[in-house]
């Protein structure tokens, strides 16, 4: 170092051209580089955080949010705390009075039906109890019409049922795990968490089916996509690009149209069955049942997701030098060994990228299974869509969604560990 005298300071520090210590100068340039990188990322990051992550978070928060009961019936919840539901005795007059007072406010603001709807998720019949009683409670006067215990029981005998009050008490907490319990076929009862009655257990079946069928779909896509990607990567560019159009065309065709086309293909009087019957391969009265079941869902979804598998595989395979294969063969490897030991390992990032993409997309799909899946080919997402757009039980939808999201995140994490998210390529 001493030879480059002018760049060495008095305490032996290496100096940059402008006289600052090199270490400091490097640190500064690193900082500038970091800042520049962050400045490039920042607009998008803020956009995504603000307009996507935050709204999703807000949506998922609904899965634990249970403030409705406490907000609509504040006085009732306060006095009901001291009531022991296990005693089998009805709460006393103070509870009924507080309840009437709360209801009078709620009815005025039309909030009582919302509450009834919330409690109806847990106990059938409460919704109409609130709605019907609401019309009569409206006419009560807090000053003159007591005692309210008798008055309410006269309005509807269900107010004289311990179970009704237990339901209100159980679900009056601010934050609940009730939706998550419902999402895994359990329920919150006054005695704690318990299994859902057997004839209503559906969620776990659907979760398992979603994962299982998504795996099959991913497997089918690998199986069908690999040869195609290989041939695209190994043909001369001219023919490969023409064949690429065949891959991209279905990709450019609307999902809804492709799903309908599969319906036309697969149904009992559909194209495939007609052709088979015409050829005599299948008897007219024993046509194949290939739609409205899991087979239908798997076929249609494999077709729809296949381009998502082919494109990343293709882009990885394009970078694999064909000379490696030739080298292996000239060193005496058989065709199979050359492929399996030399080519295949290099194509794994493509398989990984395609698989993760296909798997994630397939567990979130619901339109295709709805149309071709029949009763046994539907996914958990169909249930989420039902609760969001039909039943209005958004808490349960959010809980189901959160679980699904957790599964995906675990997969994403595993994938990132094994392959690295940087190695995902899409064409």
């Amino acid at each position, binding site marked *: 170092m001493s030879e480059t005298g002018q760049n060495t300071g008095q305490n032996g520090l290496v100096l940059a051209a402008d006289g600052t210590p090199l270490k400091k100068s490097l640190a500064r340039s690193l900082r500038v580089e970091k800042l520049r990188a962050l400045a490039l990322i920042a607009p998008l990051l803020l956009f995504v955080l603000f307009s*996507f992550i935050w709204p999703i978070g807000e949506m998922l928060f609904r899965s634990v949010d249970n403030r409705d009961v406490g907000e609509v019936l504040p006085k009732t919840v306060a006095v009901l705390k001291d009531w022991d539901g296990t005693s089998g005795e009805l709460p006393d007059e103070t509870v009924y009075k507080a309840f009437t007072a709360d209801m009078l406010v709620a009815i005025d603001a039309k909030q009582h039906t919302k509450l009834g709807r919330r409690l109806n998720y847990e106990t059938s019949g409460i919704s109409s109890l609130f709605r019907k009683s609401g019309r009569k409670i409206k006419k009560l006067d807090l000053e003159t019409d007591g005692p309210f215990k008798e008055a309410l029981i006269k309005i509807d005998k269900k107010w004289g049922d311990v179970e009704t009050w237990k339901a209100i008490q159980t679900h009056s907490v601010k934050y609940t795990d009730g939706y998550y319990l419902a999402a895994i076929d359990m329920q919150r009862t006054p005695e704690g968490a318990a299994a859902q009655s057997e004839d209503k257990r559906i969620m776990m079946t659907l979760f398992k089916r979603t994962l299982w069928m998504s795996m099959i779909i991913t497997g089918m896509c690998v199986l069908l996509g690999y040869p195609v990607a290989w041939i695209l990567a190994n043909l001369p560019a001219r023919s490969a690009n023409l064949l690429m159009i*065949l891959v991209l065309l279905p990709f450019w065709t609307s999902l809804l149209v492709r799903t309908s086309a599969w319906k036309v293909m697969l149904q009992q009087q559909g194209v495939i069955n007609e052709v088979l019957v015409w050829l005599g391969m299948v008897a007219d009265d024993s046509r194949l049942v290939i739609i409205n079941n899991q087979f239908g869902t798997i076929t249609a979804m494999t077709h729809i997701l296949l381009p998502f598998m082919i494109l990343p595989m293709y882009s990885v395979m394009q970078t694999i030098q064909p000379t490696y294969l030739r080298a292996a063969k000239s060193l005496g490897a058989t065709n199979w060994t050359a492929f399996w030991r030399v080519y295949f390992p290099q194509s794994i990032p493509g398989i990984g990228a395609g698989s993760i993409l296909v798997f994630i997309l397939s567990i979130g799909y619901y339109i295709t299974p709805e149309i071709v899946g029949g009763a046994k080919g539907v996914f958990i997402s169909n249930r989420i869509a039902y609760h969001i757009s039909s039943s209005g039980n958004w808490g349960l939808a959010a809980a189901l969604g959160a679980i699904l999201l957790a599964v995906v995140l675990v997969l994403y994490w595993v994938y990132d560990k094994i392959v690295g*998210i940087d190695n995902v390529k899409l064409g």
Partner: protein
Amino acid sequence: MAALTPISRKPFWLVALVVGLFGGFIGLFVGTANGNGPMGVFIGAALLIGLAWFYIYVLKDERAGRGITFAGLGIAGFAAAGMPGLVLGAIFGAIGGWMIYWMYEGRYRAYVPPYLTAGQVLWHFTFRVICGAIFIFLITPILVVLPLSFNAQDFFTFTPEMLRFDPEGYSLKHYRDFFSNNEWQRSFKNSLIIAPIATIISVTLGTLAAIGLSQSHVPGRRAIMAILISPMIVPLIISATGMFFFYSDVGNWLEGLGLGKTFVGYVKVVLAHAVLGIPFVIITVTATLVGFDRSLTRAAANMGADPVTTFFRVQMPLILPGVISGGLFAFITSFDEVVVVLFVGSASQKTLPWQMFTGLREQISPTILAVATILVFISVCLLTTLELLRRRSERLRGMSPG
């Protein structure tokens, strides 16, 4: 592509074996359709082997031979099963005739490396047949959609008239409906407004961020990547409801600023779609940047180019393929998206998939198929043009295409 291997004529037994197998295979279907499979196999195989023998030893004129097979089997098909028979017979004849000479002249050998063994050649072609089958799988739904869009009835059904190739069974009414119906026209226009703008936003922001991410020292790189990829990961229905509440607030705020309701509606849908397209841009562009040689930008800087020039003149051309394919993904995400727009948009922003969705749900109408056919046609034209342009530019640059 130039031939790799000099070709030579092959012995008759090989020709007979291959065309016999093909004839037998097709014969099996015709046979079973008529109630006797084995007979069909036998007749099919015998027919093609007989023709091969005749052409090779007697006729010795390729063009005549192929013409005879094509026309002869077409006519035979027509005699047996009318119009569909004619088409199938002619196709079978064309392939059969071609195959006889392809085998006999040894043409199949021409484009295969000369050092391959017979087994390897066999595998080479078996593999192509497998790939061909997969390509057919990919394309069949579209082949089904095309004829159905000319259906004279309002159902997704091949009517007996259509199968007889009776002109009565076909009509252009669904195309007329698409071009004359306001709802379809409006939704088509909306899609053409929303998808490109959303694509431009996601490509611009996405490319910048991908370049930032590819720098060597980015704090919290993994976390940032995960966040940017998340719109692809979260199930759509959850994203849709979440975004609904968010964009309602944004919409109220924008309208409060005095902006028009319709304009605000477009802004909402465009932004929501832009977010959905971002992961695709990020993934494709970072992937191309992995292979990007950083010394190129340094060299440019060294020679006095400012960062903006460096970006547009050096970096951009090199990562352009990644940017374009990311952009295509983003475009198609928006152009084919139905769940989010149903929640975030209002009726004035109705897009094509939305219109298709209600069309499928409320009244199945082949207008949807007509639209799909038009879109397929447009994308075939687009893709072909792109390919032709690419070849032209390669020729201009003096590179041989492939």
